[in-house]
């Protein structure tokens, strides 16, 4: 009873996940051969996609962590209407990256709302999403992702802050620490476990970003997952698609373990 009971309860989930995760994973690993990998590496889109994905992570994640922590600190100061703010700030939690891309398409497209607003201020519009302007194209994707995916970090940070007793902060204040000292010496160190989880989660999710870029730029700004989609759905070559997918898997696992190690020490 002591052992059989719980095992019986977890068995269905174990079997299900093994069938749908382990099996395809092994099947996938055995399918990608040298020729496919060479074809993937030789493809004109692969390296730009890898570079864009890396760049997106490097730019997006520090920005969104800074924003999320700032948002959490603002709410912690208990402003009026905090409930309303919280509600609006977490709406993007449930918005898909495809939908976020479409939302920001309405803003950034040539005849979109941003250029309309600029023209009412008598400023000439700009082709934000044109392939001739890779920087603004990239930034548009960053802004859309910042808008969509910061809520997740925000919620994790807020929950983490709630579990820190206010006593510590108050004690530090009583002993004369100013706001920045308290933030650096008291609040942030205690947020570390929450930040660690958020960081791993967000890096893995950021690696999977693609529909935002797809909606905003088509294939003008290729990302790794977008390329698997291209190879699979458009070019009808599942083997190369698998090869790219495995690259993403390897980087995901590497990132997860790397963070765990870096943050533990």
């Amino acid at each position, binding site marked *: 009873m*002591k052992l059989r009971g719980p*095992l019986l309860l977890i068995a*269905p989930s174990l079997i299900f996940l093994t069938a749908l995760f382990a099996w395809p994973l092994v099947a996938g690993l055995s399918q990608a051969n040298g020729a496919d990998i060479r074809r993937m590496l030789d493809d004109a889109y692969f390296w730009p996609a890898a570079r864009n994905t890396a760049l997106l992570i490097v730019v997006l994640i520090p920005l969104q962590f800074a924003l999320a922590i*700032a948002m959490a600190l603002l709410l912690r100061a208990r402003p009026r209407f905090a409930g309303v703010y919280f509600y*609006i700030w977490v709406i993007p939690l449930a918005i898909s990256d495809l939908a976020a891309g479409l939302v920001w*398409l*309405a803003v950034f497209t040539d005849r979109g709302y941003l250029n309309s607003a600029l023209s009412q201020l008598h400023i000439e519009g700009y082709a934000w999403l044109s392939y001739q302007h890779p920087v603004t194209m990239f930034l548009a994707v960053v802004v859309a992702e910042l808008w969509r995916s910061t809520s997740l970090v925000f919620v994790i940070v807020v929950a983490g802050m709630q579990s820190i007793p206010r006593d510590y902060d108050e004690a530090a204040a009583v002993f004369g620490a100013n706001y920045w000292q308290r933030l650096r010496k008291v609040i942030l160190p205690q947020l570390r476990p929450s930040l660690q989880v*958020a960081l791993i989660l967000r890096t893995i999710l950021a690696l999977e970003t693609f529909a935002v870029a797809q*909606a905003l730029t088509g294939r003008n700004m290729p990302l790794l997952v977008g390329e698997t989609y291209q190879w699979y759905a458009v070019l009808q070559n599942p083997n190369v698609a698998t090869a790219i997918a495995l690259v993403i898997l390897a980087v995901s696992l590497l990132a997860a373990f790397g963070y765990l190690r870096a943050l533990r020490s």
Partner: protein
Amino acid sequence: MRRHRFGLQLACVAITLFFGVPLYLIALAAFSSRESLDRFPLPLLPTDLSAETITTFLGSTGVVGGYLNSLMVGLSTVVLALVIGVPAGYALARHAFRGRDPYQLFLLLTRALPIVVLSVPLARIFLQTGLYDTTYAVTLLHTALALPTTVLITSAVFVGVPREHEEAAQVFGASPARAFARVVLPQALPGIAAVAMFTFVLSWNEVLGATILTLNQRTLPAHVLTTLSDSPLAYRFAGGLALILPAIVFVAVMRRYLLNMWGTTLR
């Protein structure tokens, strides 16, 4: 102090605008007429609202079907994930058993797997088994994606029901099954409802796997994605709003549980 408060409000309002204005704009775009969307500059205020764009979107091929498929897949995913996940969550919450830690690690690991890694080989397996291009295929994938989270969150929900309640029920004559049904489940129900919503939204939003596993039985996001490049802007805006609406309802209903679900259980 007063200036301090003012700065606080200012920052809050600025962030709220960043998150709120795009939502307003997509709603505005989706409820503008096709003709006014062609104008430039676009009106920034809701001066001439029209249902034309959104009705055209809803009337175009594949959209209603996509809606129904998304609904079917979402609800089936919820049911399947709960049926498989709730017992496992309960076991994690209540029992210390050998293999508990490896099992939890396994769950975390599966959550770290990118969807693409699964989808492409799965598509091949489903082709062989005849499941390809059915809502069942998408349901299976989404359940697999949601299950680790379902198990971990339900386990947190069950941890929230004091063990003493279950013991009290048993001392007063209830069998373990009866104690679960009469005492534990009613208390866990709000949390489980939250998990169900979470699972539904996950399924509703998932686009890549659904695209790869289907050809005709597209879910709504998959349909929007695959028709993206050859559809007019108006169609895309309406599609964007159609995809977002459930999200807004979800967050409104779930506000109370959000912190617990995404925040605490993730740590």
